[in-house]
């Protein structure tokens, strides 16, 4: 119970201090909007909009969560306020879940901005919203923990951004969004299956268009596996590098 008081307070503080600040709200809206418009403008028909919607949602989640988390944690680490959290009697796992919960929620909200825009342009009937919500949630968790991994690996905010982009942009090209994985050169295909975005985007494709080509259950399992892996490595890094 006491741990949850701390959990909620950390979540609330991060929401107020970072995610609900006007520049971040506008960034959170503008960023997915830019992705949305970029794809929608080049679309030829409403059918195209629906087919690219999963990819735009996935990218919004990936960029939203990783950018925010990498910055907030690196910033707190530099100002030493993160030490205050490490010195509090809270289990490190609960502490890091609390620190990441704001980014997960931010990613969830980011994911639905393209949906809102799409709803004005196309008919969204026939979409399995339960699966969409589940996949958005798991993709937000995985991307957030990926951002966490980056945040605990670097020490400067600019490093966090550079390092994130080093992984994010190749991910976008390899996840099947621009080019279907089957059409990628054979030597790149294994890389596509080694990144979480592929599985999140595939579940979304299945739920929205029925176009996914991977088993949905397997994709969920793989996303959970990635989440667990990123989170475990991150907490291990914190124990080794920050509790020095």
């Amino acid at each position, binding site marked *: *119970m*006491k*741990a949850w*008081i*701390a959990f*909620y*307070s*950390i979540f609330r*503080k991060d929401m107020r*201090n970072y995610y609900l600040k006007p520049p971040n709200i506008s960034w959170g809206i503008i960023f997915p909007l830019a992705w949305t418009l970029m794809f929608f403008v080049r679309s030829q028909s409403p059918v195209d909009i629906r087919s690219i919607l999963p990819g735009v949602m996935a990218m919004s989640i990936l960029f939203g969560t990783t950018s925010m988390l990498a910055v907030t944690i690196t910033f707190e680490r530099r*100002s*030493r*306020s993160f*030490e*205050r*959290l*490490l*010195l*509090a*009697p*809270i*289990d490190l796992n609960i502490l890091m879940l609390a620190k990441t919960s704001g980014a997960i929620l931010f990613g969830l909200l980011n994911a639905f901005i393209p949906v809102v825009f799409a709803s004005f342009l196309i008919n969204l009937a026939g979409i399995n919203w339960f699966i969409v919500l589940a996949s958005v949630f798991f993709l937000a968790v995985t991307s957030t923990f990926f951002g966490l991994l980056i945040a605990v690996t670097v020490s400067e905010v600019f490093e966090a951004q550079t390092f994130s982009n080093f992984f994010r942009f190749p991910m976008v090209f390899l996840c099947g969004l621009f080019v279907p994985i089957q059409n990628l050169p054979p030597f790149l295909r294994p890389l596509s299956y080694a990144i979480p975005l592929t599985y999140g985007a595939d579940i979304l494709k299945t739920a929205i268009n029925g176009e996914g080509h991977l088993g949905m259950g397997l994709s969920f399992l793989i996303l959970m596996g990635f989440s667990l892996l990123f989170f475990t490595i991150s907490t291990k890094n914190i124990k080794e590098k920050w*509790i*020095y």
Partner: protein
Amino acid sequence: MRVDILRVENLTKRYGDFTAVAGIGFTVQKGEVFGFLGPNGAGKTTTINMLTGLARVTEGSAYLAGIDCVKETKRAQKLMGIVPDESNLYPEMTGYENLDFCGALYGLEGKERRDRAHELLQVVGLQEVAHKPFAAYSRGMKRRLTIAAGIIHKPEILFLDEPTTGIDVESARQIRKMLLNLNKGGTTIFLTTHYLEEAERLCGRIAFIVAGKIVKIDTTRGLLEKAQRGQTVQFSLSKGSERAGEVLQAAFPEYDWLVVDGQTLRVHSGKAIDLLPIMEVFRDNSLALYEARVIRPTLEEIFVQITGGEQRKMRAGGGAK
């Protein structure tokens, strides 16, 4: 009856080949203000970090109220208040919000937390600015609020790392008064400070750490009494105290000579100092002396003697260093 609230045994911290803290041991008694003094890089902050869970212990043990600080860090942290050497609260949050947040980190529930935050804002004299952002506070106000955040959960022991460094005289005075009041209220305080006068005023016992080793532990009174058994004379010169130190060290090697600065020289002896022959040496060597006065040894002298005063202490045959 004296109860040890903190017991440290053979505490060691190594970074590769470098030993930052080398097997130190001491106890802190419940209700005391324990000073932990040493020059920069002596291992003070590393020791605090090990005790509070911010640094891993290479060897040794530490028990806080019987709880193993190494193996049960999170349990031990519940009993600790920690005020780091830099105020690390959240700049965008107000003073009240910071205290409320820190209370939540220790599991205090809503009303209890709010009441405690208001109470502490009054204690540290910040109720007028409670709803201003922390970033807008002066350094002294920031330190006071950081101390308040350290005691929000009524800890058994409060670790303070250089609490008055870099703040103005009036704020430092307020903080010292606050710490004394806290201690009167029963809070045990573990204090590191650069200001020896501060340690002399606040601490009941003092440990001196040099190069990762504790070289002396005693009561402050005991340390001062021992030092005051001898005599210290301070010489003020218009210039050239280093040359004077060399000359006098050679002439009177039985005394401890200390060059305080370019114009000040001190001599200490365990027995009365005969000033007349010293004055003659000043005169014969044309040393520009304009004042000599007997001074009461302070903790600073003791500190310099104990820690070796590597830079400035006159060594027999070595002259001024």
